[in-house]
């Protein structure tokens, strides 16, 4: 317990004065404010267009959709420089175990991910609240909760993937490049494979990026959305959309996260600093 408190104290000193922290978080807040203002303006004459609970769907799909990527970028900016500055090395010389150093970074994730989780809910939800009629329906339905949970899981997935890349590459610039490029490449390769083999979609959805994209798909969470999609697919002569059960995707995200964290510990313990 006291060791954890030491790690928390050390990371708090670092984050308190971190410009990366302010810049990335500020950017995410701005994106959410911008989205909320735009939505409110579009709904100026018809407040119900941006009102809870329906507004959760677009809040979680659009601004929150970017949350995991930005959380990952911030994670890299907070972890990788410790290797370039050799402060990770110094911390171990000063008395931290190598594993403890990484545990400190897990505490950082535990601190920043809830903030990334809360920002769209507070800003978007807060913006949509005045137009909502609390008497009509509950402000949050179980579908919304499911979508929120999926968002939380995507944050964990991207946070742990970023941690792994930061530990693997140990320099923030290249690590960020690899991190961003991976998701892009996965999308491109998945598309290419699907062109050749349509049946691959079900499998490709279980790649890390596929899991995240599918978890962010409104069709997964809202039955009326899925009905809509399937109707439009039928018009184009396509069969209904085949989506995995949400729990399978959540489980996959959890397993990937555990794998990334486990690999990070393995790397840090194995390698010289």
């Amino acid at each position, binding site marked *: 317990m006291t060791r954890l408190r030491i790690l928390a104290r050390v990371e708090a000193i670092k984050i308190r004065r971190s410009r990366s922290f302010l810049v990335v978080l500020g950017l995410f807040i701005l994106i959410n404010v911008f989205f909320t203002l735009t939505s409110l303006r579009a709904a100026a004459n018809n407040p119900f267009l941006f009102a809870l609970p329906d507004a959760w769907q677009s809040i979680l799909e659009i601004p929150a959709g970017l949350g995991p990527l930005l959380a990952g970028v911030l994670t890299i900016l907070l972890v990788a420089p410790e290797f370039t500055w050799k402060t990770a090395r110094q911390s171990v010389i000063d008395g931290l175990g*190598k594993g403890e150093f990484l545990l400190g970074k897990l505490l950082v994730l535990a601190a920043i991910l809830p903030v990334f989780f809360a920002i769209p809910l507070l800003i978007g939800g807060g913006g949509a609240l005045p137009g909502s009629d609390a008497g009509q329906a509950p402000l949050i339905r179980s579908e919304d909760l499911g979508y929120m949970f999926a968002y939380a899981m995507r944050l964990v997935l991207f946070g742990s993937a970023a941690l792994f890349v930061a530990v693997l590459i140990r320099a923030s610039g290249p690590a960020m490049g690899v991190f961003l490029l991976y998701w892009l490449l996965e999308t491109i390769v998945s598309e290419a494979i699907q062109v050749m083999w349509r049946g691959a979609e079900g499998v490709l959805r279980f790649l890390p990026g596929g899991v995240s994209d599918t978890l962010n798909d409104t069709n997964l969470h809202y039955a009326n959305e899925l009905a809509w999609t399937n109707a439009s697919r039928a018009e184009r002569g396509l069969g209904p959309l085949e989506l995995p059960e949400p729990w399978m995707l959540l489980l996959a995200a959890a397993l990937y996260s555990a794998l990334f964290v486990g690999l990070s510990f393995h790397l840090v313990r194995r390698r010289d600093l």
Partner: protein
Amino acid sequence: MTTARTAVIDTHGLSKRFGGVLAVDQVSFTVEPGQVFGFLGPNGSGKTTTIGMLMGIIRPTAGSFRLFGAGAPRELLAARARVGATLETPNFHPHLSGRDNLGIAAAIKGVGAARIEECLEIVGLRDRGKHRFRTYSLGMKQRLALAATMLNDPELVVLDEPANGLDPQGMKEVRDIIRILADRGKTIFLSSHLLWEVERMCTHVAIVRKGRIMASGTVAEVVASETAALLRADDTDALVAALEDYDGAISVRATGDGVLVGLASDDLAALNRHLAGLGIHLSHLARQRRSLEDAFMELTRDDGAESMTEIATGVDS
């Protein structure tokens, strides 16, 4: 067999290979309590790597070591609480103030805020403590590293080239701090590529070259045991190059008079055979009466901040 006091550092056949490079090769030495131990060798001889293994940041390829008698990983973590060390350059967060950086080290070492101020005071950084580390001069950075090292009032202080890049005034300040620590009975292990620096401050020395210990003991013993020889050949550059590759050579220096070489043993015949094997034929080979120390002292008079590459490999620039 037990000694009266547990050695502070005790290594046995410690080795580290980086891919094809054998950076540290079967290094064994012992540092007893109260010694000021100099680890002397030219750049690239494996000093930092050796210290890194002792500090738990580099995994040895072979061999073992003990700190305060502790050898198992968990014991070592506890033993390191009695050590203060910096490796190579001062490693701090550039965007944090000197004080915040010490705050991080203090939290890890379980030291209170009052001690941070004390250590800033000792190294003369009290006034600059609130400024960002990246605004510090190299001397201030080194001093902050010294302050971090002292935070936990360690029994063993490990300094890797503490005077590197400092001007004569800065070097003197570092020396003074080391002397104060030594007077307080701390054990000090410091690496250097400057013989004169080690001679001035240390009680004991190990000379390391290409990852191997060439000689070790008290400073007086090591200096006395060395053989110095003056060599001449037609091609001085080739001679210097060949001597640099000779395992028995501790130091090589070209002088106007020939090439002065310090040897770990007095087997001049072996040296001659080595050179002949490389096609270098000597026109002159003589044991020097002048001690190696004298030769080094003369060198340091030229330029106080000369690097050991020049001293140990000896090429006049």
